[in-house]
């Protein structure tokens, strides 16, 4: 029998004939932590009395979750991480550098890589054909030291796509609808592998959004093949030499298969307090919103900001709405300025945050009060995530978010386009 993408990559990196269910030790091409998991990662590294990093140039500490630091405690954590970087020679991406997963996609991840990060959304790099997965601080500390880790080779669920997204419908709607259908544990321990002719119509920005949320169905990885779209993206990033084609074998064994017709998808929203609690945006008309947040590793890319700017051109935010936008990287911020999107959004009433995670996890830049509701383009709506446990988080696409900015209530973007 042929191999899935997960089996192929883990076979290559472990030197074994890796099959679903096997346990293998694989070389890791890139390991990283961010500023809320980094301090414990460093402490576990020190507790292990490891002398040095296995690969300093493939080890990164990112400052994005609470950067610039909002208080003394986190400032001191940042200081601790910078000290570790000086001592070990690992790379750092400091304040304003952007969201770790976006920077990994722009500059570091290659098709066929194994990537481990102390952040659950490390799965994002699966968009480029990398076996990328989140782990905790102990696991990542050991990868820092040894350059390898153990994996149970996951069974794969094939998601085959056909067709093209309709106007007003985005990749976010695809992944929300998928998670709504299979549930928040629908892919636990498994790989989601995307394929089919519909992939031709999904750009890397779309694939990053989809891979990013694979973990919200419990998946270990969300994998896309490396194809012409991947090559185009890597060329655009001036990393053409990092490209290699990569696809599952035609006769690979999948645990199950799900078909998605892109043209059949509708703008979709996840309601509080679970990502699989989904409904069509139109059904939620009338749901009043206090804050709209566009950004994060899920939807803080240029294409997302462009979509929002297109909808908001010449419009103003509803008087009740606080409108927060955080581009996911400096490259995105600069491109959005050049294209005039930032001007459009500021004229519509947006507050622009520096590249980083911003309001996503309740640490700064848009913390919610009790009773408030937020429509966010992020990936999680758990109780208490953005501040008060009595707040309500709805997840939607940048188009749905922009439409909601105008009306002050959850709005299907096709109703304002």
């Amino acid at each position, binding site marked *: 029998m042929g191999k899935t993408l997960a089996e192929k990559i883990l076979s290559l990196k472990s030197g074994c004939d890796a099959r679903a269910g096997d346990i293998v030790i694989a070389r890791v091409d890139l390991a990283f932590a961010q500023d*809320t998991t980094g*301090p414990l990662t460093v402490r576990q590294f020190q507790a292990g009395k490891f002398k040095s990093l296995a690969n300093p140039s493939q080890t990164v500490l990112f400052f994005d979750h609470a950067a610039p630091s909002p208080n003394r405690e986190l400032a*001191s954590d940042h200081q601790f991480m910078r000290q570790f970087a000086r001592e070990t020679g690992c790379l750092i991406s400091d304040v304003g550098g952007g969201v770790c997963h976006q920077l990994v996609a722009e500059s570091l991840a290659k098709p066929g890589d194994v990537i481990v990060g102390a952040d659950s959304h*490390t799965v994002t790099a699966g968009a480029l054909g990398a076996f990328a997965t989140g782990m905790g601080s*102990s696991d990542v500390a050991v990868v820092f030291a040894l350059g390898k880790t153990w994996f*149970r080779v996951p069974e794969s669920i094939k998601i085959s796509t056909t067709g093209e997204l309709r106007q007003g419908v985005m990749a976010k709607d695809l992944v929300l609808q998928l998670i709504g259908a299979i549930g*928040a544990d629908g892919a636990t*321990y498994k790989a989601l592998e995307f394929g089919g002719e519909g992939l031709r119509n999904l750009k890397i920005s779309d694939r990053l959004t989809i891979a990013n949320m694979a973990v919200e169905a419990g998946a270990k990885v969300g994998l896309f093949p490396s194809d012409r779209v991947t090559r185009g993206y890597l060329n655009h990033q001036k990393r053409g030499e990092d490209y290699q084609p990569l696809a599952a074998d035609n006769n690979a064994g999948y645990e199950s298969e799900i078909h998605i017709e892109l043209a059949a998808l509708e703008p979709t929203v996840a309601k509080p307090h679970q990502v699989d609690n989904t409904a069509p945006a139109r059904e939620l008309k009338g749901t009043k919103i206090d804050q709209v947040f566009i950004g994060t590793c899920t939807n803080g890319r240029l294409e997302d900001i462009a979509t929002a700017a297109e909808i908001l051109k010449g419009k103003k935010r509803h008087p009740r709405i606080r409108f927060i936008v955080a581009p996911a990287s400096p490259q995105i911020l600069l491109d959005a300025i050049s294209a005039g999107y930032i001007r459009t959004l500021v004229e519509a009433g947006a507050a622009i945050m520096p590249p980083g995670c911003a309001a996503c996890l309740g640490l700064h830049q848009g913390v919610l009060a009790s009773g408030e509701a937020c429509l966010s383009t992020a990936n999680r709506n758990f109780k208490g995530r953005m501040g008060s446990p009595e707040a309500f988080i709805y997840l939607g696409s940048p188009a749905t978010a922009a439409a909601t900015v105008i009306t002050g209530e959850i709005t299907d973007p096709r109703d304002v386009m």
Partner: protein
Amino acid sequence: MLKGKAFKFGDNISTDHIIPGRYAYLRSNLPELAKHVMEDADPDFAGKVNKGDFIVGGSNFGLGSSREHAPLVIKMAGVSAILAKSVARIFFRNAINLGLPVLICDTNGICDGDELEVDLAGGTVYDKTSGQKLSFSCLPEVMLDILDKGGLVPYIQKYGDFRL
């Protein structure tokens, strides 16, 4: 043999229920952080739990963030093991990496407050209150070894590498 009382929770207890992200500023001050364990699932939990007690979840326990502080504060609260119908993968690995046993079994019959006895080697749970006996699925060998050494860092210190 582990002995203690069951604290029963429902399905989909996330890492934000276990230790909310808003307390990230306390992550380098573990004794303070630990006071907020399970706060958004049961605000009184930290005051009620005793050394040796068990957290009993439903399906998909520990979904969400990769924060190892989630199993860490549970361990600091004195919890001797987590029992659940299923567990999210990052949380599962994190708990074992800290030497905190996670046992997959059908928890439907266990009620809040039941007195439990867990035989880790034998793979059984005895609910003294209901008289029910359960068995839990065996961990992969590498995880059993990590658990046996008290966690991943002591395991690597002992062997210097992974052993399959």
